């Protein structure tokens, strides 16, 4: 494992209502190309932590990406996979959904078609460009969502419950897809089996605090 710190979270706290903290003083370092799985009860703050790191919520504390404090210019480095793919697929065609990120991040228009085709090929949906998102199955929607973020080659992937709602076969395929993407990955999940399978580190979050951390070297002895 390389030692360059990719994400550094310092004293991060977040509250939706005054005095009711969802995240309390979180400190976390994620290294380059490391896969960290965040596990915890429903409402423990996993998704909120990912949203804070992605700069989608306003928080107290500090989040650094590659040593720089989060700013809009750093957004291109991050891809966020939402729990419900219907939230992430908002365009009338699969092509436009996958092209949405590259277009906003200033990729050349003449390259977009190629980028979309490559991204869809990577998730096994080559030829789906003209399809309409609401005609797709849940598993296909999940894969298109993934294609829509890998299309702009983010260095960091923030994945919120990537395997939720998938059939055992689709789940297995989806885990393989995630595993094969070279990026720093932070995954919020209830899927312990997946966490053990692909996580270099597992972090337990409870009541908005990091309670425990296990490294692969430790749990790979048992599983």
């Amino acid at each position, binding site marked *: 494992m390389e030692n360059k710190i990719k994400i550094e979270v310092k004293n991060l706290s977040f509250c939706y209502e005054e005095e009711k903290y969802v995240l309390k003083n979180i400190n976390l370092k994620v290294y380059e190309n490391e896969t960290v799985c965040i596990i915890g009860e429903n409402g423990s703050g996993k998704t909120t932590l990912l*949203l804070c790191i992605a700069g989608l919520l306003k928080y107290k504390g500090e989040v650094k990406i590659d040593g720089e404090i989060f700013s809009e210019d750093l957004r291109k480095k991050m891809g*966020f996979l*939402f729990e419900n793919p219907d939230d992430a697929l908002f365009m009338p065609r699969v092509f436009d959904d996958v092209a949405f990120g590259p277009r*906003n991040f200033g990729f050349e228009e003449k390259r977009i078609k190629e980028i979309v085709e490559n991204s869809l090929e990577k998730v096994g949906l080559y030829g789906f460009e003209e399809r*309409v*998102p609401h005609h797709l199955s849940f598993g296909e929607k999940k894969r298109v969502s993934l294609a829509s973020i890998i299309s702009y080659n983010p260095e960091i992937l923030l994945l919120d419950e990537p395997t939720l709602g998938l059939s055992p076969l689709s789940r297995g395929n989806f885990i393989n897809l995630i595993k094969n993407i070279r990026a720093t990955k932070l995954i919020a999940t209830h899927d312990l089996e997946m966490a053990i399978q692909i996580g270099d580190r597992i972090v337990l979050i409870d009541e908005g605090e990091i309670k425990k951390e296990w490294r692969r070297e430790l749990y790979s002895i048992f599983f």
Partner: protein
Amino acid sequence: MKHHFIDRFAYKRGFLQEVNTGLKIFLLVLLILSLLLIPEKIIFYVPFIILVFMFLIFSKIPFIYFLKRVLIIFSFLIVLFFLSIFKENGLRIFIFSFLKSLISISLVFLFVMTTKMFFLLEFIKKVPAGFLISEVFSFLYRYFFLLQDEFEKMKRGMISKGKDPKLKDYFLLSGNLFVRNYERSERVLKAMISRGWRIK
């Protein structure tokens, strides 16, 4: 859940499906304009009715399905036309307004049903001020079916707990749907921002 996509026939192979969207809209405008300008004699309307039927046959749209959709819209108009009967020369006005609107609505339906929604939205974008309209319609088209699904799920939930929904329950469900979709809109906005979209 079964949905009735307005453009479901656009994915079939047929005569109107093959025509370019721009040309189709030009033809539609031309046909509706000529319909407005022709003299008020039944004989002049016959070619239009034949044209509608030919389009239906060659575009492989089931007649009953088509008729049901046209009549839903038409039922709102017929009340207005019916009032004209009581005017001087009212029956004549009623008959020709009836024919003109029925043919126009049929043509619009035929053209929309055989055009992929995406192509229609892309065309609207090219019209002045069409960008905003196109964006709004694309969201409407994308999320209308999700709203329908969510409403159906809530209704089934209510029925499964032994409550047969009455009018006031539908209001309750609608309120709930509004709150749920307000939350969804926030999540969609987050998804857009995370992929580089900025509020302009």
